[in-house]
């Protein structure tokens, strides 16, 4: 580990949910630092707070206490609008169920985040093309989600996540709905994005084989991390 400031830093973060009269504490003064260029797999039992962690990192949910900084920028004090702008520029999300727009083609789905930029349509088109090439779908631009396999849809989702060139990718069980072969393809792409393009990746997974693609595995249990270095 170097001493330079990490890509992600959680300091004393607390998160609670209230269900009716009951309040459950997910994190209580949690600390975490993820250096830039890391590829982390987060594992842990269902309900341990893995998705909640990603939501906090991506600024789509708020902590009840503590500080969250991404690339040296504090995000815990940002307004909803500021968070939206910040997410558009800094975060790429990849979900278990792809979450593509059914009425849009692959290229249009990938273009969505670029609608938030000032790029001209020509420039947008070339970025979309590049992103789709990275995930190996340059020949599927006109296909709609329902005309593609799960693996292909997830590759489109990855292209959408990287098209505006964010530094941090947050993946919530990206292979949870895929067969082994498609899962390996997706994981290889993530590895490539991490290795070749230097993207910092935090990936939640249940699957030990998927976790092995990462550089480190964090086990989340009862609101605490237990780190295990990978035996390569």
């Amino acid at each position, binding site marked *: 580990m170097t001493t330079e400031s990490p890509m992600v830093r959680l300091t004393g973060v607390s998160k609670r949910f209230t269900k009716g009269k009951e309040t459950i504490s997910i994190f209580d003064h949690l600390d975490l630092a993820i250096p830039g260029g890391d590829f982390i797999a987060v594992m842990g039992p269902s309900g341990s707070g893995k*998705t909640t962690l990603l*939501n906090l990192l*991506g600024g*789509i*949910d708020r902590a009840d206490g503590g500080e969250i900084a991404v690339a040296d920028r504090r995000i815990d004090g940002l307004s*909803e*609008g500021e968070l*939206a*702008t*910040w*997410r*558009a*520029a800094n975060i790429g*999300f990849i*979900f*278990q*169920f792809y*979450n593509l*727009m*059914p*009425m*849009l083609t692959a290229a*249009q789905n990938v*273009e*969505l*985040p670029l*609608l*938030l930029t000032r790029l001209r*349509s020509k420039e947008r088109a070339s970025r979309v093309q590049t992103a789709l090439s990275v995930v190996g779908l340059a020949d599927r631009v006109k296909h709609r989600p329902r005309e593609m396999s799960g693996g292909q849809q997830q590759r489109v989702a990855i292209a*959408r996540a990287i098209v505006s060139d964010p530094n941090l990718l947050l993946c*919530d*069980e990206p292979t949870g709905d895929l067969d082994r072969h498609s899962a390996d393809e997706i994981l290889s792409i993530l590895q490539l994005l991490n290795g070749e393009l230097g993207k910092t990746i935090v990936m939640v997974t249940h699957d030990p084989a998927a976790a092995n693609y990462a550089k480190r595995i964090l086990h989340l249990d009862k609101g605490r991390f237990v780190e295990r270095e990978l035996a390569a």
Partner: protein
Amino acid sequence: MNDFDLVRKNLFRRKLRAVLMIVSILIAFMIFGVLAGFYRAFTAGEDRAAADRMITVNKINFTQPLPIAYYNRVRAVEGVRQVTFANWFGGYYQDPKNFLMSLAVEPTTYFDVYRSEFDVPPDQLQAFIRDRGSALIGESLARKWGWKIGDRVPVASNIFSQKSGGHTWDLTIAGIVKGKADHIDTNFLLFQYAYFDETRSFGKDTIGWMILQTTSPENNDRVAKTIDAMFANSTAETSTDTEKAFGKAFAAQFGNIALIVLLVVGAAFVTILMIVGNTMALSIRERTREIGVLKTLGFSGPRILGLVLGESILLALLGGLPGLAIAALIAMALRASLANVAPAFALSPVIALEGVALMIALGLITGIIPAVNAMRLKIATALGRG
């Protein structure tokens, strides 16, 4: 791709549903356009009524006759500048379907009272006054049948008959009357009362109504009171009112119909509002997850609000604009046949603008609740737990 493409694709993701909504909105605005056109036609008279013109009719109602002797007595009332009178003829040309707006009038005074509305070349007016069996026709009537000065036209009545038998009067066209402004209807035929009265088989020495012009609108009230007092307790009591008020009373008959129609249209609109509003709410709720994804990508709450409102407004316009266009076509098609009853029947620019405003309002009202919900939606909730 831009936000508008997104709005458009969202709207048409369920084609049948979108088309059904568009068609129902289309029908609502078609009805709106036609009825608004009618309403305008019936109320148009009010605006152009001259302030110093009054109408004296039988107090029972305006279809009951007045004795012709009243004419000279009204002439003598102080504050009256000019008086003329007319009698409804109930005319048609060749076939009762070809209704002819025709009146028997007092030829020397009629165009004096209506001088701000109509233009008659002086020589043609003189010819009309001179020839008892002649008629003046309005420009648009002349155009409709292709009649020219000198033509002999058989005008039949569905009320009156000749002493000599038959329902037809042969009249020679002495001149053509022009309106002084576009909206003035010239779809009429006027002929001499004296000739009419002499030849008809019943109703002799009675007239339909008198039109008088006061020396100034300030005298209207006094003149009306004097005239009506003069004939009080006679066999034919009178009611004198300004042309404006008379037009209103006349329009009020249609006004009741207009009210019913308004209620029907209102009910249709409210129904459509609820259907479209509910369908919008449903289709936005179906997309909760996608809205969460858009927000994750960095679409702001206000932008999402705009996308949803854009969709409901686009829907209203896609139904409403063709609806208004069809209404305009209907108005054009009916204009000729309704020229007698509702000469100003048309889809005016004002109605079109009101229609567009109504569409935008419809779009906003049906879209606002789902739009605000979508704007406020929490991403974590929208994405569920996965």
